[in-house]
């Protein structure tokens, strides 16, 4: 892959939001076609990268704008309203950057933050399947001749588009212990095979396929501590999760905008409603208000939670991180429900004529339904309830 042109340098939160809005207007145009024909968004990703947004969370000390989590969530929701897949692709990029920020050495930060500001994209290779437990099998082997990664990963959103694939690996430590690391593997390294075998019915062009690592050589300086960053309170979990919340929220708002357009321009009034135009139907107006309000409630919790994440990043401790995780879990509860609601009501309010394949409006539901399954929202309730009822802090992992 050729060295990409150096992106614009984002310098403020306002600039980031403006860039997101302008990209969203661009991305929305062919979003339906990309989904329908499963066209991977290579060109869009080039423009997305060139905007500088992928470097906007880099700390000021390393030359970035260090935009707030509130802004990051807004950026992602804005993109998601236009194209759910394009919003999800950089989620793992920002995730890896947060792991790096929290657990990387000065050296590693200097190197990778700079690569990102220069336009490198990070994918991910975290999840594995085939085991009913959640333990990982992909290993980091430290041979005298060099370090190697060996294993197979699934649901690797963004890997296919990335210059680097941060890969969750397990290594043997002294005294029979193991520890986990995030190894930043070059996409172009010998032994890396990225397979575009993602065939979920939604988020179809995220390139969330599988990656095979066959004795892939990695340099020790590419290996960032992972487990260590969960042994102490850090914001990796809530930071990862709030981006998921923002994606679902954005897809929901996208569906809501389609609803308004369709009802205004194309729906016909219901026989028994006694009104001339569909947009005058009092029961439709009531339900439009309902969908809008549920989206607003979700949005309010996303912004609230992002504030907690920002606070915990500034002063991470048991309490601040737990509060952030809980606030983000609450946001995910409402974004999940509101996103699904908006995607479903789009049709109830628009009517049968909105179901034609050429309009492909079901992509909102397919996207939000697929993406909201990342981790089960049912267990968010347990975490939130346990925190408020019993004062129990949530477990520390990337999914809370």
């Amino acid at each position: 892959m050729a060295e990409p042109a150096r992106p614009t340098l984002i310098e403020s939160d306002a600039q980031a939001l403006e860039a997101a809005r302008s990209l969203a207007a661009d991305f929305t145009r062919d979003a339906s076609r990309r989904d329908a024909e499963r066209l991977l968004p290579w060109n869009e990703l080039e423009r997305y990268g060139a905007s500088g947004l992928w470097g906007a969370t880099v700390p000021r000390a390393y030359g970035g704008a260090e935009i707030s989590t509130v802004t990051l969530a807004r950026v992602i929701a804005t993109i998601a309203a236009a194209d759910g897949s394009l919003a999800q692709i950089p989620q793992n990029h920002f995730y890896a950057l947060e792991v790096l920020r929290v657990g990387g050495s000065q050296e590693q930060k200097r190197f990778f933050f700079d690569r990102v500001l220069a336009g490198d994209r990070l994918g991910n290779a975290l999840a594995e399947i085939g085991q009913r437990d959640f333990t990982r099998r992909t290993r980091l082997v430290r041979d005298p001749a060099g370090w190697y990664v060996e294993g197979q990963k699934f649901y690797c959103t963004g890997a296919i588009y990335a210059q680097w694939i941060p890969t969750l690996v397990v290594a043997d430590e002294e005294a029979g212990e193991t520890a986990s690391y995030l190894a930043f593997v070059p996409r172009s390294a010998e032994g890396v095979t990225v397979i575009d075998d993602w065939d979920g019915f939604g988020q179809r062009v995220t390139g969330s396929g599988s990656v095979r690592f066959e004795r892939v050589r990695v340099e020790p300086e590419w290996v960032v501590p992972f487990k260590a960053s969960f042994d102490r309170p850090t914001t990796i979990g809530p930071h990862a999760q709030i981006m998921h919340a923002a994606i679902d929220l954005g897809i929901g708002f996208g569906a809501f905008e389609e609803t308004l357009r369709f009802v205004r321009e194309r729906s016909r009034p219901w026989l028994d409603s006694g009104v001339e135009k569909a947009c005058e139907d009092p029961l439709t107006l009531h339900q439009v208000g309902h969908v809008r309000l549920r989206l607003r409630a979700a949005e309010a919790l996303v912004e609230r939670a992002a504030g907690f994440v920002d606070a915990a990043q500034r002063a991470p401790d048991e309490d601040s991180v737990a509060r952030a995780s809980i606030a983000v879990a609450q946001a995910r509860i409402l974004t999940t429900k509101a996103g699904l609601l908006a995607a479903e009501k789009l049709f109830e309010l628009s009517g049968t004529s909105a179901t034609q394949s050429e309009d492909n409006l079901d992509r909102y539901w397919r996207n939000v339904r697929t993406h909201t399954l990342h981790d089960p929202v049912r267990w968010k309730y347990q975490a939130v309830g346990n925190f408020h009822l019993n004062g129990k802090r949530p477990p520390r992992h990337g999914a809370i």
Partner: protein
Amino acid sequence: MSEPSNADRNGFEDMRRPAPATAARRITTDAEAIEAATALAARLSAGAARRDRERLLPWDEIEAYSASGLGAITVPKEFGGPELSLVTLVRMFEILCAADPSAGQIPQNHFGVLALLRDLGSPEQKQRFYADILKGERIGNAGPERGRNMISHVTTRITATADGLRLTGRRFYSTGALFAHWIPTRAIDDEGRAVQVWARFDAPGVKVIDDWSSFGQRTTASGTVEFEDVPVGPGDVLPVWRAADRPGLWGPISQIVQAAIDAGIARAAIDDAIGFVRDRARPWMDSGLDRASDDPTIIHEVGHLETEFQAAQALLHHAAALLDELSAVPVTAESSARASVAVAEAKILTTEIALEASEKLFDLAGSSATRAAHGLDRHWRNARVHTLHDPVRWKYHLIGSYHLNGAYPARHQWN
């Protein structure tokens, strides 16, 4: 009936037309009907996901359905049919649609039209058309017209000419028309009255186009029908305009079939959710459990879905039993209203559980259930598309108006 050869299935599928009906089986009891439906469901179920994915029309399945005799179960006894109850008809639709709601939906208008025939047909018309049905012929339906104006607006015309009656118009959402021997359509006659005209599928000027492109119920072929100067006999016209003055049950009967289809979709979604959780889902890491099926949060949701489903089905069967009761005596404005309200109740709950179950299926089953190989999103797509004919929000309004103000629902095919 003769099975079409496999060669027919490639490429020519869209041009396939109904086989001439010869000798359908005669079903005589409720139990036989349920048994026949159950047997047919096993056959429908096998290829349902593939037919959805590849948009293969269920021709063989529909011919098998006709051969089974299920198409004639509502034909009155005096015309040689078994006159089975609507409870049985509803159960038949539930069973077939749990297996494949696209194939199962195809006969929906068949029974709606038969109910209209019973209400409005002359003795001669009944004699003639019921005989065709007993032979195994299918009735489709030319759906509404398209446009932003009221859904009831009609420009299809039947005109008296020197050569006899001629039918001209263009209709959409015509579920079952492609598979039908008879294609009835709404039209306006020379006196400006609403009538239903029965056109033969192979009459000159009849064109059925499979341009149904919705993302759900993909293989219903609910496409376009064009009528261009189609010659029609005077005995092929039913006086629908009388229904506006004369209370009948064809509206609620047409609706209850819709509700039964949605109940079938809901049942299939819940069954697939349960199967996936039992056989494939992995337990969530924070649950501390070995099996997803022991997760109390999953158990809670299954409890909820089953409860709402049972309530929907109970109201569906209540409404069907009420229709059976009301159709045994002369229909009054009051009994027609009661029927519409009862069916509206069933319709709302079946709609809601079909949508909810097909969406929650994934909450319970998890990410891996979204893989294309499973084809499980078809439940939601089917539920969503099939429940849009008439908005449930106005069903609530109808029930509220009836109870608060004693207002009778308007009489049309969606009430």
